[in-house]
């Protein structure tokens, strides 16, 4: 198991900031949704693009951000040419993200491309990352949908963590499940370490993490270890970890057994890590999906009647439902 040393932890935009509702004057995206999943080719971009469209059609002002810095192709999914300005302009030229947003031909939906050609662009330095993150957080939109790249690079994980909704896409296949869990654990422990650092108990968390050799410790064990000497910090740490509430989408579902994978993942994650996960739904395996990709037309535009399209709309609705005044606050 890969472990993350504290020296890797950069300043991570905290979840301590107030929500938009709390501070009406602040300019920031109402909700940031980050779509990740660890593995490549599992439909993250497809989900991001169509989720954006579904949200926009529902009347929300949506900005899609292609945060797959090394392999951006969200514009292709949307059937538009690569925008002139990209996130690299934010990083290297200090531009505002707003100025880069391109129309997509769909009402309420704009796109910020992440395509970068510079060699090191896919791995921005900590400072550049921080600037990017700060801008994303202040972007004026109802929903900001970040399409993350594959893998567990730091910026990918940081984007996932800064989001209000970290949306995990997985396929009912061992490879995808494996990568998804690796991604989740990496994100969870980065959050843990970051929070511990903020609370000044990094050494305790580190000790707890380190004391178990190669095996992954559960969040509860770390919280417990911290609680032995720093009870108040432990409470905050626990709260922060509970906040790590991932939203799950299972893509390319073909069989009834596939259909049950989503619930099972939610149950297993809870069982072993003690954390809640929200299941947003499954998306049927549908020829329309790849066909529309080849045509470079969004599924929701070109095959709105397909089952995959209607599944995606359901996912979008489930996501929006989470933001409605708390139903059962846990």
């Amino acid at each position, binding site marked *: 198991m890969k472990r993350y040393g504290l020296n890797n932890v950069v300043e991570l935009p905290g979840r301590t900031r107030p929500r938009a509702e709390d501070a009406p004057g602040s300019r920031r995206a109402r909700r940031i949704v980050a779509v990740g999943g660890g593995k490549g080719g599992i439909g993250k971009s497809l989900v991001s693009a169509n989720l954006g469209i579904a949200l926009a059609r529902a009347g929300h002002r949506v900005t899609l951000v292609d945060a797959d810095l090394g392999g951006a192709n969200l514009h292709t999914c949307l059937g538009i040419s690569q925008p002139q300005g990209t996130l690299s302009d934010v990083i290297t030229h200090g531009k505002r993200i707003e100025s880069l947003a391109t129309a997509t031909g769909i009402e309420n939906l704009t796109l910020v491309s992440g395509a970068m050609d510079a060699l090191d662009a896919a791995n921005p330095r900590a400072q550049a990352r921080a600037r990017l993150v700060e801008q994303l957080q202040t972007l004026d939109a109802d929903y900001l949908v970040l399409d993350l790249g594959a893998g567990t690079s730091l910026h990918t994980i940081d984007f996932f963590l800064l989001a209000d909704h970290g949306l995990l896409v997985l396929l009912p296949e*061992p490879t995808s499940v494996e990568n998804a869990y690796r991604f989740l654990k990496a994100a969870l422990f980065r959050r843990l370490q970051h929070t511990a650092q903020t609370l000044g108990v990094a050494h305790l968390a580190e000790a707890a993490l380190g004391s178990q050799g190669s095996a992954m410790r*559960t969040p509860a*064990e770390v919280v417990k270890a911290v609680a032995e000497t720093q009870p108040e910090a432990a409470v905050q740490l626990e709260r922060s970890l509970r906040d790590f509430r991932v939203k799950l989408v299972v893509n390319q579902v073909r069989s009834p057994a596939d259909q049950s994978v989503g619930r*099972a993942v939610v149950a297993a994650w809870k069982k072993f890590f003690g954390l809640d996960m929200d299941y947003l739904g499954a998306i049927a395996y549908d020829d329309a999906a790849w066909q529309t990709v080849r045509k470079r037309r969004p599924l929701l535009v070109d095959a709105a009647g397909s089952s995959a399209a209607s599944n995606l709309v359901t996912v979008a609705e489930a996501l929006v439902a989470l933001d409605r005044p708390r139903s059962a606050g846990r």
Partner: protein
Amino acid sequence: MTVSEEPTLYDVLEVDPGSSHEELRAAVERARDTYGTESLAVYALVDEDQLGELRAKLEEAAEVLLDPARRASYDRSIGRIGASTLWAEDDDDEVPLPPVEVAPHARRAELQLETAPEDGEEDALAVPRQHALDLALTDTPGPFGKGPERSEAATGSEASAATPSSAAPLLSGDWAAAVPAEQKGPPGQVEAVPPGVAEAARAVVEPEPVVAEVPVVARGAQEPATGSVSTIPERRGLPPALGLRMKPAEPLGEIPAAEPPPEALPEPGPRHREHRLRLDLPADAEFNGELLRRVRESYGLSLQQVAERTRITRIHLENVEADRYDRLPATVYLRGILVNLARELRLDPARVSKTYLLAAQRSHAGGSLVSGRT
């Protein structure tokens, strides 16, 4: 007694304790689907040991809760239905090791009668065995099943083992405590039991010579035994329920024919029995083969009997008791053996497997740090 933070078997299955049999069955199926070897959802999520542990817990839950009789007595033990307070009186809230003596005899006795003893060496135990038959209700349906007491013993001691983790409500189940320590970290980790607990345990466990009740009743039930048993201290104030429990046993009075001659009685018996009264286990006891053997003997159980009850082969049991780690099966299986054995001996399965496996690992590491607390 206050039910601890320890997850109940219902928690393990993630069902409401009021669930119907059908709902439980569905939950078991669901759990097997979710956590079984075929399940994608647990692929690469945690290591195999953790999964094995969970699967064992699930199977235990299935085994108990899908059996209406065992479920009923389990329910009483967790205080769902008016559990017999007679037993609860003996152990206060934080008593980790309540009296555990009677039920094992009962089981043993039950066993003996099924397979009449052929062996002279077993004779000494004939009386308690014979008599305790009624107590064998542990595993059979009936209003006076001994389940509650048994399970209280289990939950009580588990509670103490779990104490540290109750400070971390983040985990739904007591996963942290259940996670095997032996592969995860230094020995120190296991020593999580707060210092006070052990004393409390000792204080409570010691004074109560529960076992004595067995011979007492035996006297009434079986004539020949009377004289020989007199060395065993009488227990004053038998719980009234015990008398009631006697009833179902009466028909068995006919069986004495199968009983061995009384003169064999005094030999091994008294020694074990006295030991058993004084066998106070601290909450932080570390179990090695020696300690497990002593607990077994304190119940007057032979290896063969335990083997039959638990379906663990006798060879394995011998090797466990002799700490012959190199001849024991892989950890995954060994844990199952230990959990089963602990349950049979009314010990906290988590603690037994954890400490035993830790000792095994230490020995693999070259040291001989095995330490059985007495």
